[in-house]
């Protein structure tokens, strides 16, 4: 997933980048690693979707499952590699906790693009 400049400090993304915002309605958008590279995801996010990003971090499907979440493919017209991680039905505390678990995994993996 991408992390905008406001959600990076000391080279580390905020845990907020790993949970849905209000407009996401419980479904955190992601780019599927099986369909796009980290660089491709970065370029798509910034140049096609015209959103801000300072880099691409990633979690695996297994890590998402380990955090008690499900992930789905959801190709869109302008984002063929689109998918989402499902946070629907969870309370605030659960969402916050699972976002931190995902952050931990992503940090362990390190930023994928641009490479450190």
């Amino acid at each position, binding site marked *: 997933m991408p992390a905008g400049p406001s959600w990076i400090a000391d080279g*580390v993304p905020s845990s*907020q980048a790993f949970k849905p*915002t209000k407009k996401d309605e419980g479904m955190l958008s992601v780019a599927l690693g099986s369909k796009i590279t980290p660089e491709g995801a970065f370029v798509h996010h910034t140049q096609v979707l015209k*959103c801000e990003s300072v880099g691409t971090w990633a979690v695996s499907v297994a890590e998402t499952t380990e955090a008690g979440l499900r992930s789905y493919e959801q190709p869109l017209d302008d984002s063929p590699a689109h998918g989402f991680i499902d946070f629907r039905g969870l309370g605030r*505390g659960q969402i916050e906790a699972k976002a*931190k678990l995902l952050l*931990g995994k992503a940090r362990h993996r390190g930023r994928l693009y641009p490479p450190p």
Partner: protein
Amino acid sequence: MMDRAPFARLRLTGGRFDDQGMPVETLVELAQYRELVLGVARAQFLREHPERQRVPRGFFDRLQLRLRAVEDGSAVPVLERVAFPGTLLDVDDDFTRARDAIEDAVAAAETDQPPPNGFPPEALVLFNRFGQTLRPDEAIELRRGSAATGPRYTADTRRKLLLSKRRTYQEELQGIGWISEVDGNGMSCRIRLRMGPATPVPAPLDEVTFGPVKDVLEPNGEGPPVRVSGVGVFDSAQRLIRFDSIHDVAVLDDPEDIVNLDDRLDELASLKAGWLDGEGVRPDALVIERARRMLADLLTFEVPRPRVFATPEGGVQAEWTVGEHEISVTFEPDGRLYAVSVNLASGDAEEPELADDPAQIAQLLRVS
């Protein structure tokens, strides 16, 4: 009549008192409680004897209090009154009446009522010393004799009592600031607190604090930032007017941390609406200031430095990685604090309640 009797039990709750035992630095409250009882008793006596200008010789010696025990559960120091040698205790005398008057005044303040008419207004100033060390989430329940319950004395009720007839009150204060003037003859200085009024406030110095203060003085008050603790005097709007005493002055170990924190919060304060790809409320100015104060105060504790972010709802979120834990504290737009601590290894999570107290955040960050 007997030679000793239970006088009061002060049940200390919240914050530091929730652990076993009683923090040594709070023992001063027991001594201050006795001073308060003595002071109220004196004021009451002089009111009842207008022909006298002083209390009788030996008046204060009649109140001999001993700490008999600290009961289990929350810290409950038991104060026992002992008769002066060769005498026996009255069930009801100047000091039991003073004790009860204090309880009644605190009970009134709890319900936003003024002190009872019988409470001597000139004695209200004495509440300055008692409860001065209480943190926002702490209380002293005043139980007379062997009573099972009593009114709760907090920093808030203390402030209400003091301001009921006065315009200022004292409170313990710790903060970061800069020294702008030092007067060696008058043994005083002026301090501009980072989160205080823009104009430096006066502060007295003594033999211990003079040296450290002199060492950090530079032209235009641009010396290194210092951590200062002492007793401040505040007005009814909770604005600092002056220091009445300084306990300690010490140069900050890492002054650049303050600069980095302020720069980051200035960055967040400059965000525009829609900062998050079209979403995102501009961070609330009051929230930014609250985060600025608390996170700077947190720098005085031995805890990691936070990563600080805006939230889409207009709040500020501080995050830490401490060992296996990811921890966040969110300064919400409505003024509350919301905290989450997750153990990445076990997946265990908690959402502890936090008061407006950096010491509590520091405690949260001390995970093994």
